[in-house]
């Protein structure tokens, strides 16, 4: 039973990157899309 719990809880502990890292990844993806010409013009 405890083993079952341990297995189930593992994904919570190991989960993901910090908000900083996600923000950097999103910015890089957007920059790559702009560089690749997917977004040619972003209006403001």
């Amino acid at each position, binding site marked *: 039973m405890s083993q079952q719990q341990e*297995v189930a*809880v593992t994904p919570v502990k190991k989960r993901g990157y*910090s908000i900083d890292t996600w923000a950097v990844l999103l910015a890089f993806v957007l*920059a790559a899309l702009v560089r690749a010409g997917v977004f040619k*013009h972003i209006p403001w």
Partner: protein
Amino acid sequence: MASSVALSQMRSVNPALQFLKVIPGVLLLAAVGYAGKLLEANLGKYAKAHHWTFPNIEYVLWAILIGLVISNTVGIPEIFRAGVATYEFWLKAGIVLLGARFLLGDVLKLGGTSLALVGIEIVGAIAFMTFLGRAFGLKPKLTSLLAVGSAVCGVSAIIATQGAIEADDEDSSFAIAAILALGALSLFTFPLIGHTLHLSDHAYGVWSGLAVDNTAEAAAAGALYSDAAGKLAILTKTTRNALIGFVVLAYAFYWASRGQAQAVGNKAKFLWQKFPKFVLGFLLISTLATAAFFSKEQIGALANLSRWAFLLTFAGVGLRTNFRALSKQGLKPFAVGAIGEVAIAAFTLGLVLAAQRIFGW
């Protein structure tokens, strides 16, 4: 029982559910920010057509004001809260994209000057806040949190330090409330002081980056003055943020030496964990822009993407500020924070005015 625990844990971290949960709040951020943009564009025209005298109010202030009105009247319904809390995520993505508007040489030059000023600010702010905390009889760890929050970078620094020095949650929420309340006030007082003293965009931007504690408020206070001041406020604040690890490490050593916190094992790992990664992202995009990796049009597109990200941030600054909740957090920490912030603002203003003379900003 094990399976029910497991299922609820699994459900709570389901990425698809997490994503769906933030959508309503992100849409609210976008709606509030866009309403601010529409008001800026149309209210001036309307006033002019009707021969009214109406000041030109920037979208930044409109977005913050609309957010403040919603937050302090009807409040933020539960369904929007997770999404509204993403405003810091948009801020950081916006800062990374803003790197495209800085040539690396300018970053190093401006960052070098900022670094010297930031170093003086951090030492002065920590010393003064520690003195004030003792004079007011605050708990020592609460004093440490207030000192770090006002010296380095507001809420993130307080949260990072809380873990490192094992401070109480209550101390942390007192310190965060004081820093947020004072950050909200700075949005209205800083531009007023800047205009009264006829500060240049450069001097004002550096001052906002040095004296306003939370990154979102520093960016907003800068942008409220001018676009150029906003850029410099973010650069200076980012320089301050980059030093967070060193300050938290120093406090961790201090409290560990007094036997009131765990000793730090691997110092390099500790510094890396506390280092704000978006600073590296900003530098990388700036390096790419300097190496002509992006065309002029592409840099314009990246700059506009960064403006949209900041639009969501400014809406979030207003929406998450609830004056009633902040006022419940106790008078003493707020008094220490307020006196300290006024002193730090005056001290950094003196630094900036001296630098303005030396460097001819």
